[in-house]
């Protein structure tokens, strides 16, 4: 299996990617702190670092669905933001071949005062499409969203579910080579979720590479071809989703058990 994969094209390669955050509170202290005691600030500069991602390497192959699994704060979203090109790694390298559509959050840049159509145009262009491309896809997006005549109403008249539907409809129609999905599948009603899964299956068949961040084990197991488990910014396991999920589950069960016995002994 590994040998077969070696012949496939790598569309996303991470090499020893490390992300360090400085905590910027010294800047937020403002000009005053800087004027009063610049040395104090310089000391903070050296000390307040936080390692969000540490030497993570993996490759994602063309057409594959790759899952990233981990607990809250494990560094999943930081990793995804770096792949999306929003954040830059402190060390290491990320190479991307093809157009990436970052679905880090649905409806980024939605403006409540503007209509659905106006928001589709803005959002689509911000996601990397040309204006004429998104205009051509407008009918398809409107029909997928199922918003009907609401599409010409200002967004502030929408329910939150309707806004999510519109956001997803746009994101999924931008036809990326690589789609990055961050937990967004957990939203919407059952019917709309079903529609999303169908659409993701369509994209998979169409050969779109998907990188999916989730803490829903079921989603990872059913959708992904491979998965990686990240904890405290490091890779714990990388392999088939079944393997990774099994290891993750047993580890979490172990963790919960130790926590229980620890609290019981107190």
């Amino acid at each position, binding site marked *: 299996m590994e040998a077969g994969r070696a012949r496939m094209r790598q569309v996303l390669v991470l090499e020893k990617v490390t992300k360090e955050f400085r905590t910027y509170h010294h800047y937020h202290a*403002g000009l005053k702190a800087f004027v009063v005691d610049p040395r104090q600030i310089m000391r903070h500069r050296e000390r307040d670092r936080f390692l969000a991602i540490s030497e993570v390497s993996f490759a994602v192959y063309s057409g594959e669905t790759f899952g990233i699994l981990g607990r809250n704060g494990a560094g999943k979203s930081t990793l995804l933001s770096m792949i*999306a090109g929003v*954040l830059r790694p402190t060390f290491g390298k990320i190479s991307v071949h093809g157009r990436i559509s970052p679905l880090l959050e649905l409806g*980024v840049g939605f403006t409540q005062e503007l209509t659905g159509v106006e928001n589709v145009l803005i959002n689509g262009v911000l996601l*990397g499409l040309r*204006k004429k491309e998104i205009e051509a896809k407008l009918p398809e997006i409107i029909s997928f969203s199922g918003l009907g005549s609401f599409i010409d109403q200002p967004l502030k008249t929408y329910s939150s579910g309707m806004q999510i539907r519109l956001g997803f409809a746009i994101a999924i129609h931008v036809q990326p080579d690589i789609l990055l999905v961050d937990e967004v599948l957990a939203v919407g009603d059952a019917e709309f979720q079903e529609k999303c899964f169908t659409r993701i299956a369509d994209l998979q068949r169409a050969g779109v590479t998907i990188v999916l961040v989730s803490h829903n084990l079921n989603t990872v197991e059913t959708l992904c071809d491979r998965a990686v488990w990240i904890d405290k910014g490091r890779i714990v396991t990388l392999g088939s989703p079944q393997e990774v999920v099994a290891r993750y589950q047993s580890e979490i069960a172990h963790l919960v058990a130790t926590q229980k016995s620890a609290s019981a002994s107190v």
Partner: protein
Amino acid sequence: MMIYPNFYQTWDVISVLLSKEVKLRYRGTALGILWSLANPLAFTAVLYIAFRRVLQVNIENYPLFILSALFPWQWLSNSVGSASMLFISNSALIKRLPFNKAALAVALVLNDMIHFCITIPLFTVFLVISRDRGPSLNWLVGIPILLVTQTLLTLAIVIVLATLNALLRDLDQLVRVVLLLLFYVTPVLYSASMVPKNLEWLLFANPFSPLMISWRALMMDNDLSPYIVVAVGHACLSLLIAIPVFRRTEWKLAELV
């Protein structure tokens, strides 16, 4: 021609952000875009009473005189005034989408430029009524040059302020104070010729003066003032500062805002 691979896409980003801003500014108001005129007109009325009637400043056509520089000043100060919060108020976009953040600045400056352009016909009407004299061919040359120059200068300042304010939040307050000071140091309420010799350096040290002097010379007297050259110089110089500052900081913005 490809200037850089995403040039056309970035232009589309600017255009959607711009049309959003234009649509939003007066949405829901009864008078709409007329509000762009209301502010400087009311201000001019007050200044007319204060300076012409009370202080008895001896300038012919004083309201028109003020407006010829106040309209472009309004553009400048609106853009510069909202610059410092530009990246911070757009943090949702910056944190989640990889796009050229300069597009936000361009959209901001062009939006205020459009609102300035609306004042030109109004000014022309006033000019014809009060002076029996309309625009000349010089306007066709002067207006585009000054529009481009002021766009570039304002853009440079906006980019620097927006970037630095992501690092040092004090800047927003500072900018307000400085803008207020600059308004009185720039010949808007008075003419450049009224400035005493020993203070003339102030006119040149301040990047806004040459622009305002040039606008007034063009709009009031149909003159292409030599100050245009100084204004272009200021614009180029500020871009030379702004571009490297922005290039070095752009990728960090997503962490800062």
